[in-house]
């Protein structure tokens, strides 16, 4: 039955698109390059500045140039293994690695759970018709309108009381902080994911169900793989957002060893004397590494057109 079709396919390569014949010339488009360069410079400048400060032996902020006078790893050494005698921090010990660990645990758990719970909720909202569906969606959106900061006092009190009953998720615990973060972004992500799930043709679900899949198998085997791009984006955004979050963490975490990175690093520049910009810069620079790693590893999933070819519209 395919002879006709195969012949047609063999003929196809002749029709290969001719691309790149017209390449924009540099002379005509110089202004575009100028704007791009300016944008790059603006984006990169702070990074360069911090990098320079991190490797500068001179600790004062004022003395820092973009090109340091002398390079040294002194700042990193002080950050990672502070000399108690020399250190002027009150806590006298830097817990840099511990803070980094806290931040990683909190941010990773939050982003993974955000993606998972968001996807589950969104799938239900997108595919099932149940009582209270509309109301649920609307209230998710409404609640999301209030910034979490407004609820700071309430959140504080809730964690305080919760801690009385379940100490592991009260104030000054990572679990408590994770729960608060999770609540904060759930609504937005559920809406985002629901919008994406709505674009996955329901015939795919139905086809899988007729093929013998349970709702759970449809979710894990068909819908979730197709949603990988948006799941990765939400995962990355949530990771970066949590990793950088300061205000909530500062209100809910109290002891130095529970601090997340932003809280801990703040200690270096919080003081009257501002000689600690060097270690601070080093700490910020190092903190960028996990974010880069996460981004690189998820990047390959962020491809468009995953659902292409499933249905003919």
């Amino acid at each position, binding site marked *: 039955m395919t002879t006709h079709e195969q012949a047609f396919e063999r003929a196809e390569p002749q029709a290969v698109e001719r691309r790149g014949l017209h390449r924009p010339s540099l002379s005509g488009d110089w202004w575009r390059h100028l704007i791009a360069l300016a944008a790059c410079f603006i984006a990169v400048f702070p990074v360069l500045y911090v990098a320079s400060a991190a490797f500068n032996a001179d600790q004062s902020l004022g003395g820092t140039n973009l090109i340091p006078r002398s390079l040294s790893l002194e700042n990193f050494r002080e950050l990672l293994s502070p000399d108690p005698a020399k250190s002027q921090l009150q806590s006298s010990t830097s817990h840099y690695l511990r803070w980094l660990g806290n931040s990683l645990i909190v941010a990773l758990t939050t982003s993974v759970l955000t993606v998972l719970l968001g996807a589950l909720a969104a799938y239900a909202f997108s595919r099932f018709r149940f009582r209270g569906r509309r109301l649920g969606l609307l209230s998710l959106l409404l609640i999301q309108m209030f910034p979490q900061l407004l609820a700071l006092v309430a959140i504080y009190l809730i964690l305080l009381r919760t801690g009385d009953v379940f100490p592991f998720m009260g104030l000054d615990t990572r679990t408590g902080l994770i729960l608060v973060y999770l609540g904060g972004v759930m609504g937005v992500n559920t809406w985002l994911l629901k919008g994406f799930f709505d674009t996955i043709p329901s015939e*795919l679900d*139905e*086809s899988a169900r*007729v093929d*013998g899949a349970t709702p759970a198998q449809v979710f894990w085997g068909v819908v979730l793989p197709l949603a990988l791009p948006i799941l990765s984006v939400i995962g990355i955004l949530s990771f970066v957002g949590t990793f950088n979050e300061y205000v909530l963490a500062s209100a809910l975490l109290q002891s130095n060893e529970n601090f997340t990175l932003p809280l801990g690093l703040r200690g270096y520049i919080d003081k009257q004397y501002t000689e600690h910009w060097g270690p601070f810069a080093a700490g910020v620079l190092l903190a960028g590494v996990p974010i880069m790693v996460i981004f690189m590893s998820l990047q390959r999933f962020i491809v468009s057109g*995953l659902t292409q*070819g499933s*249905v*003919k519209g």
Partner: protein
Amino acid sequence: MAEVVFTDVDKFYENGVHAVQDLNLEIRDGEFLVLVGPSGCGKTTALRMVAGLEEISGGTMSIGGRVVNKLSPKERDVAMVFQNYALYPHLSVADNIAFGLRLRKEPRKMIEERVAWAAKMLDLTPYLARRPKELSGGQRQRVAMGRAIVRQPQAFLMDEPLSNLDAKLRVQMRADISKLQRDLGTTTIYVTHDQVEAMTMGDRVAVMSAGLLQQVDTPQRLYDQPANLFVAGFIGTPPMNLIEADISFDGLAVTISIGAQTLTVVDAGLKRYPRLRAAGGRRVVIGLRAGDLHLADHRPELPSVTARLELVEALGSESIAYFRIDAMAIRPEGLDEEVDDELLGEGVTAARPNLVVSIPAESAYGLRLDTDVRLAVDTAKLHAFDPATGEPLR
């Protein structure tokens, strides 16, 4: 393999639409049944109720002697081919086909054999490693078929599987699917709104309109003995000419008056529609197939009427001539305008041709547009219906 039986099946959607009404239909073991009807008549709904994708509001549905009303799609063991194929885009062709078997935890080796078998049946072997987006429309369609046949289900359900293909490929796939079904012998329900597909593929054809089953029969019987006005107008290309006419019966012969012109019905015609006699003095709907009208010179022995030639479409071996005769043309309810849209030029609605005749191509050369032509009517082949109820006057 199994028979599928609808008993008094009803379907109400939440919005109150009564999409399928009191459906009684038995699809025999191994049969290829085509469900046909105009858009929105409830074909898809009926099919989805078999698959378990749509709840059954009333009546019972059984597959292989087992009542399945409350069973999930998974437990019904049927396979469905969707209009848009619904292939899993993240899986290769092989994995798409194997999907159902994997869910059933079949042994690996068996899965491989079955996939290879299905791919061979459908000429998909060279494409097994590809993703759906790297396939042509026809190949995607075959993957969707492969996913259905590989499981050897109780029944195949197909919802307009060919409607996304171009005309030529559609004709080819039509034959391929028919052959495949005959080879496998699996009970099949095939939904289409294309009556040519229905006539060419089905062992039997079920015609639906507005949620109601109109007639179930073999294609030839549907064509020769339509159960009502709707089926008469729906089945056949070009569609049957349905025009109003007055009947008079003088005790011996039945005479039909079409406008000012009269025809006498021969005995053979009266034998098929005996109640024509009783309709004397009343107005009825006369049905004449395009092939049962001829140019008068060709069939001098037949009675003839005069009609004005409006348009001729040459199809090669034969030509379709559109005439206008001084009488009311009838369109059965539920049959919308789409049947011959191309005739609906601006402003000509009132003067639309109401008599379609197929004539041999060489005779069409002598015809001149906008002239009156004598048309012979083979009254032995005519159909007659009650205009109020749509019942045949049999």
